[in-house]
């Protein structure tokens, strides 16, 4: 009983924090990776 009571709030906390982070998105800088074939990539 003690074990499950401990898990429920933890699960709720994790789920709540994921939802909150998606709702608040974005809260920090974003990185946009541009894959290039090689160093001498065309300008476009």
């Amino acid at each position, binding site marked *: 009983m003690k074990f499950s009571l401990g898990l429920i709030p933890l699960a709720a906390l994790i789920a709540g924090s994921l939802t909150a982070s*998606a709702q608040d998105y974005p809260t920090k*800088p*974003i*990185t*946009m*990776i*541009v894959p290039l074939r090689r160093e001498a990539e*065309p*300008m476009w």
Partner: protein
Amino acid sequence: MVGRIVAQHLQNALGKPVAVVNKPGASSVLGANEVAEARPDGYTLGFFSTSAVTAQYTVPTPMSLKNFELVAIVNADPAAIAVSEASPSKSLKDLVAAARKAPGQMRIGMIPGASAQIFAAGFARAAGLDLINVPFKGDIDGAIALAGEHIEIHVAVPVSYKSLVDSKKIRILAVASEARSPLYGNAPTFRENGVDLVIGAFHGVFVPKGTPPEVIKKLADALQVATQAPELVQRMNDVGAAVLYLRDDAAKSFLSKQDDTYREVIEALGLRISPAH
């Protein structure tokens, strides 16, 4: 260049900095894999070109588009055939006739392993030509070789030719689109010249598989705002690139069609070396 323009306007729409990081290597696979392996939280995006599709088939790589969620397509341009300003061919029809008279002699510049290789091989096949493929590291050095008459033909998207066309060093003879566009100088289509080929390149924004749908929606909304900004459209058009914004099912259907088209051409040309996913 298109990536930087989009990033700048995406940053305005999201209200957070968007840093562009170029990741070269392995025909785009290194950068793509870095995106696939990133935390699916919306803070690592991939700005992929057509190479993300072709690299699935033309390089021996475990990379697959199945490792990503497509947020939106932001740009698409047709392949174009260019010749030097001094070329006697005034139209694609002229060029095809000249190349047929000299089988195995005309040189076409392209980038091996990239969409341009598929353009070159697809053009030769559709026009029934025997051409010599000359590999270049990038579109710009190939276009410069064309201007210097070291090769007779070059194939790439029109944006790669912009400065050399403006300075009257090379000419675009035709574009592989459904219809002419003022963006590409109203150049005739391949089909108008008897070459039945419609093919091009695109750019899209991807995130790692598992990214929450709410985050994907926010990104797609922001990209929609970004790609509608008159300044972005102007900057893209100034470099000769067209804005095409597609999201959700329309974007997925576009990507799936591109994937099918490229795979078909790649297999028909015997260029597929990677196993099926």
